[in-house]
């Protein structure tokens, strides 16, 4: 009877991803000292499930590796081991290694064992460094490699098996285990009955026995592999105390009783000395390895895998969907019934039915969009680790606060906002928060705080990244800008403009370039990426008090509210969010600068006019200004008035990408399909205004 397990492998890997997240966040909580018993239990359970699953799917590297982690965690859980900073760091590194192992399991490629072995050695180093004093019932783990030298003189194995009382309740049967063992070699079994209670106190469902088993190599079968024995005990190893020791040739000649005394402790003390040295040696590499690079790489890979993957949807969302589809079906049947024998008397009912249909459709659409909405905690969850690693590396004390983690946004937006967010947080860590001495000298708490805050505002999600660090140095920024020739010395810039300079390409005020940030690439990319998502990023800062970056993003990339406008024979869509107002043109308010550039006086400001038909080179319906309408929009570079022939309806449009089959066109963010099946282009205000500026001079010369 064999079941094809491969079909469950994907599920296991997905679950393990979650398990790893639990592990990581739990470990971080332990590190900050905020953890209670429940956290360490959760961490242990996560490691345990990963190990169990990995064993089932014959992912031996993962199972073996996790086993060591589990042992360490088990000791912590039982209070036998102090939860030290060092141990946590090694465990965190192990989580990274496990991620890599999972990735290679997912891609069906052999894992890179170099790093695995390295970290495994570190783990064992930690495990052995203090466990010599630990009690004997610790699960004794030895690496295959450790035993390899001993293999040739191996006569068999000495197995001490002490089931926990409840083991039988888990459906495991000792008899079966022994039968399996017997198939490996000659078995000498010695049962310890000392724990047996009086007959009247005995619970038949409990196990009171323990065994000392000698498994001697059988002449015919040859040497037995330790892994084979472990495999037999695989299902019970958490419900028992088990030790598997090699049986030496020399000792086999002795009495069986004396073999019991072969002290495992002796062996491990030798190992301890070696490993202690190793552990000390390893302390530095661990700290540097905790650099965010592997973590980031791993997360990037994971993201890649997740992009094509599945999302988890709450049942409540599914239920509401089903409800809505139900209503839709009812409305549909009502309408079709009406169509069967329609008379003008029913026109009112028809109108009502259609209104209901419209409402149903809209609700359905909203619900479907909600499926793609995920809480931003998916994006936030990587930051505790990032902050932990980087603050250690930079010797800063930093506390990370996260607010509004349940704020939902579209999955596609979330995937694309991840990297800019990481960049901003790293920036805050590196440039924002000062080192403890400086902070104390400035009369601040030596622990810096970085706050991530997410909330909804209108059709947007706002994400704030604030720190209580040094703030942006205004004078330095200005000086640098003058140096680079971005600003002339006479210019009197308002503060916001100065702070805005950090988003300029190649602009860095860091005195020293570190490998975390400060090369001056980045902030411009951050802004660019966010702009591509139809959002914006701003900075507010106060010197000495801290800096806040505010990201504004549309909730979804799939749908937008648009104003349909007509220019000549073409229909374009202007996103409603960028429209300030639409008005009829009063020719008196039009002025020209240098004869060509037109500006319109709206109340007390002058806004440039953009003739859309010029920019897009289409045949206009009219060029007479008084026949046109002016749509005042706000783009990247300020306000502008766009001349259109006519305003059509306002409607929600589904955004289709032009890049799928063609390429990006400046001034156009995408396309949509109108009710009549034709394609209409959605205008990208920032791009359009930039385009208009480029076109203007050419006109004046022509």
């Amino acid at each position, binding site marked *: 009877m064999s079941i094809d397990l491969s079909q469950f492998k994907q599920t296991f890997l997905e679950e393990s991803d979650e398990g790893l997240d639990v592990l990581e966040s739990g470990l971080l909580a332990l590190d900050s000292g905020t953890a209670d018993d429940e956290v360490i239990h959760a961490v242990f359970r996560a490691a345990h499930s990963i190990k169990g699953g990995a064993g089932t799917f014959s992912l031996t590297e993962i199972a073996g590796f996790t086993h060591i982690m589990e042992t360490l965690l088990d000791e912590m859980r039982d209070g036998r081991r102090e939860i030290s900073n060092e141990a946590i760091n090694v465990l965190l590194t192990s989580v990274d290694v496990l991620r890599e192992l999972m990735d290679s399991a997912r891609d069906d490629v052999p894992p890179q064992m170099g790093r695995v072995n390295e970290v495994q050695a570190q783990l064992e180093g930690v495990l052995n460094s203090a466990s010599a004093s630990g009690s004997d019932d610790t699960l004794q783990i030895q690496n295959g490699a450790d035993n390899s030298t001993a293999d040739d003189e191996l006569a068999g194995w000495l197995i001490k098996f002490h089931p926990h009382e409840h083991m039988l309740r888990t459906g495991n049967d000792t008899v079966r285990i022994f039968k399996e063992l017997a198939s490996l070699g000659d078995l000498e079994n010695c049962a310890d009955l000392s724990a047996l209670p009086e007959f009247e106190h005995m619970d038949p469902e409990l196990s009171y026995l323990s065994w000392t088993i000698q498994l001697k190599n059988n002449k015919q079968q040859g040497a037995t592999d330790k892994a084979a024995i472990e495999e037999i005990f695989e299902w019970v190893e958490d419900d028992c105390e088990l030790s598997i020791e090699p049986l030496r040739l020399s000792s086999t000649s002795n009495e069986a009783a004396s073999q019991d005394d072969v002290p495992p402790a002796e062996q491990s003390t030798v190992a301890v000395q070696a490993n202690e040295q190793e552990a000390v040696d390893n302390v530095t590499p661990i700290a540097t390895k905790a650099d965010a690079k592997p973590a980031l790489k791993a997360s990037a890979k994971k993201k890649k895998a997740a992009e094509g993957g599945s999302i988890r949807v709450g049942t409540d969302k599914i239920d509401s969907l089903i409800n809505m589809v139900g209503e839709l079906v009812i409305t549909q049947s009502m309408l079709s019934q009406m169509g069967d024998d329609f008379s003008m008397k029913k026109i009112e009912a028809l109108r009502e039915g259609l209104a209901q249909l419209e409402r149903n459709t809209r609700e359905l659409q909203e619900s479907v969009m909600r499926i793609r909405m995920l809480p931003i905690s998916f994006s936030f969850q990587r930051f505790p680790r990032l902050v932990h690693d980087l603050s250690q590396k930079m010797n800063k004390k930093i506390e990370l606060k996260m607010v509004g983690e349940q704020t939902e946004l579209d999955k596609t937006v979330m995937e694309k906002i991840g990297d800019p967010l990481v960049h901003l947080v790293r920036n805050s860590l590196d440039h924002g928060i000062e080192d403890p001495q400086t902070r104390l000298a400035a009369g601040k708490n030596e622990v810096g705080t970085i706050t991530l805050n997410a909330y909804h505002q209108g059709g947007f999600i706002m994400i704030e990244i604030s720190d209580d660090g040094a703030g942006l140095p205004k004078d330095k920024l200005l000086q640098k800008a003058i140096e680079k020739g971005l600003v002339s010395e006479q210019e009197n810039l308002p503060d916001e403009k100065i702070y805005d300079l950090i988003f300029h390409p190649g602009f860095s005020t860091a005195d020293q370039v570190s490998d975390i940030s400060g090369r001056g690439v980045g902030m411009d990319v951050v802004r660019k990426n966010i702009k591509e998502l139809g959002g914006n990023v701003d900075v507010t800062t106060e010197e000495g008090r801290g800096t806040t970056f505010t990201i504004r993003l549309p909730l979804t990339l799939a749908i937008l509210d648009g104003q349909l406008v007509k220019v000549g024979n073409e229909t374009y869509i202007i996103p409603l969010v960028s429209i300030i107002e639409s008005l009829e043109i009063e020719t008196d308010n039009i002025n020209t600068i240098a004869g060509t550039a037109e500006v319109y006086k709206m109340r007390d400001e002058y806004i440039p006019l953009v003739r859309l038909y010029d*920019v*897009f080179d289409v045949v206009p319906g009219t060029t007479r200004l008084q026949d046109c309408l002016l749509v005042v929009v706000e783009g990247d570079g300020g306000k502008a008035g766009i001349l259109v022939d006519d305003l059509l309806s306002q409607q929600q449009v589904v955004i289709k990408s032009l890049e*799928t*089959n*063609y390429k990006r066109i400046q001034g156009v963010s995408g396309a949509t*399909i109108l009710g009549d099946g*034709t394609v209409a282009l959605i205008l990208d205000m920032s791009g359009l205004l930039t385009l208009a500026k480029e076109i203007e001079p050419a006109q004046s010369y022509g």
Partner: protein
Amino acid sequence: MSDIQDIVGELNALTDENAEQYLTFILAGEEYAIDILRVQEIKGWNKVTTLPRTPDYLQGVINLRGTIVPIVDLRKRFKLPEIDYGPTTVVIVLKVFGEEHDRIMGIIVDAVSDVHNLKYDSIRPAPEMKGNADNRFVTGLTTINNKMVVLMDIDALMNSAEMEIELESI
């Protein structure tokens, strides 16, 4: 008699591993052939939505069951004299393999002609050519019914760097 031979030849080609099916179309009196497996569908000509600031041969985009598909006028692409679109004018919707991702694009041609089985050994390499349809887009020449047919490399045509450069320069 020759008919029978033709049919037998075609049948042989059909079962022959060394042959592939090609769709031929007419453009300004010349016949071109493209790999039929790349053809998604053939549509009648309909109004397109023009894209601003694109080369003139990029006629615009159409809605193909919810997908936005760009349409290239092949006459304009090869700088052939333009004609008014008539009843035989069709859009051949093609799958184009690109370096980054595959795309769906349409080409406007005067008319579709036929489907032929072409053996590999019947395809002759194209001689060095000047002009608008240069060697990059032509994989070879063959003869069908005593007429020359140009085998066209769709990917090279649609991905040609020229298309990108022209976009930038406009």
